């Protein structure tokens, strides 16, 4: 019997590797977050968005889209809810956040930082989710009663995530930590700048 050993090689760029790394970090945060109990389904800190914010600030919107959507799809595969309502909720939230971030990013950087980006994205996130809930899952006006809870959560978690992202980038800039492991490179600043 002839055994055919074919090696299929996909050409990947350094940018692809960066995207994959960032998406992996975001995925880790998503899994970490799923261990935190929530009083109401849907009220979650959204820690993975910290990664999206950092990627947005460092590498721009296009890469943030990649990281965010990869995180949603890969996360749903990990949790086993790909193409279920839960998946579409994450997707609609992520897509609307990204659209809003595309505009928020244009705000003058002197006045608006990651905290603003994060708050706008958080509101867009719940808006996207409520839209899917209302148009598809629960077409009943009664869900309006939950909006104040979600809006409050968005404001609080949006601010906190924005602060974490801002602080993280500040740290990486002022006190570069040499990180071990080949992928990150010796003495490289996290996140590594694109070549």
């Amino acid at each position: 019997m002839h055994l055919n050993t074919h090696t299929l090689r996909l050409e990947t760029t350094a940018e692809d590797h960066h995207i994959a790394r960032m998406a992996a970090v975001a995925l880790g945060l998503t899994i970490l977050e799923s261990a935190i109990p929530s009083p109401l389904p849907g009220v979650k800190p959204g820690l993975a968005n910290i990664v999206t914010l950092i990627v947005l600030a460092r590498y721009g919107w296009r890469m943030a889209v990649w990281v965010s959507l990869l995180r949603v799809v890969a996360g749903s595969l990990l949790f086993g809810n790909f193409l279920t309502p839960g998946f579409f909720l994450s997707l609609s939230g992520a897509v609307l956040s990204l659209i809003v971030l595309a505009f928020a990013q244009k705000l003058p950087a002197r006045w608006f930082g990651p905290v603003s980006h994060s708050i706008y994205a958080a509101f867009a996130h719940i808006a996207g989710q409520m839209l899917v809930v209302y148009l598809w899952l629960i077409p009943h006006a009664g869900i309006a009663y939950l909006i104040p809870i979600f809006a409050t959560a968005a404001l609080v978690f949006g601010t906190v995530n924005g602060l974490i992202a801002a602080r993280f980038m500040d740290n990486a800039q002022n006190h570069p930590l040499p990180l071990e492991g080949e992928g990150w490179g010796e003495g490289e600043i996290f996140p590594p700048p694109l070549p």
Partner: protein
Amino acid sequence: MYATALQHIKPGDWLTLLLGSMCVAALTLKLWGGDLADKAIIRSGGKIFLEVPLSPDQRIEVPGPLGISIINIKQRKARITSDPSPRQYCVRQGWLQQAGEIALCLPNQVSIELTGSRKRYDSLNY
């Protein structure tokens, strides 16, 4: 710790925070302010026939001296769908959703009143 957190908030971020807080406050007042009704009191012949929450959609038949009036509850709104009274005022009133709104069918003596978390009037006189 707080000081380091605060230095990451730029002037525009404060503006965003303020705007966000105002949005949340406005939404809460609008949606939880008690102006939207959450219960319907159905009366027949002056006596309370039924008190129902507006959350589940349903159809209620209320008997009166002339016949049966049909009340529909849908999407947190209520209306009288059909009534044997000649002038049909209560049917034409359409959907009720604010607390304090009343539809009264005469002479079938059937009425529906919506109430919220607080009552706006103790009584109404005509």
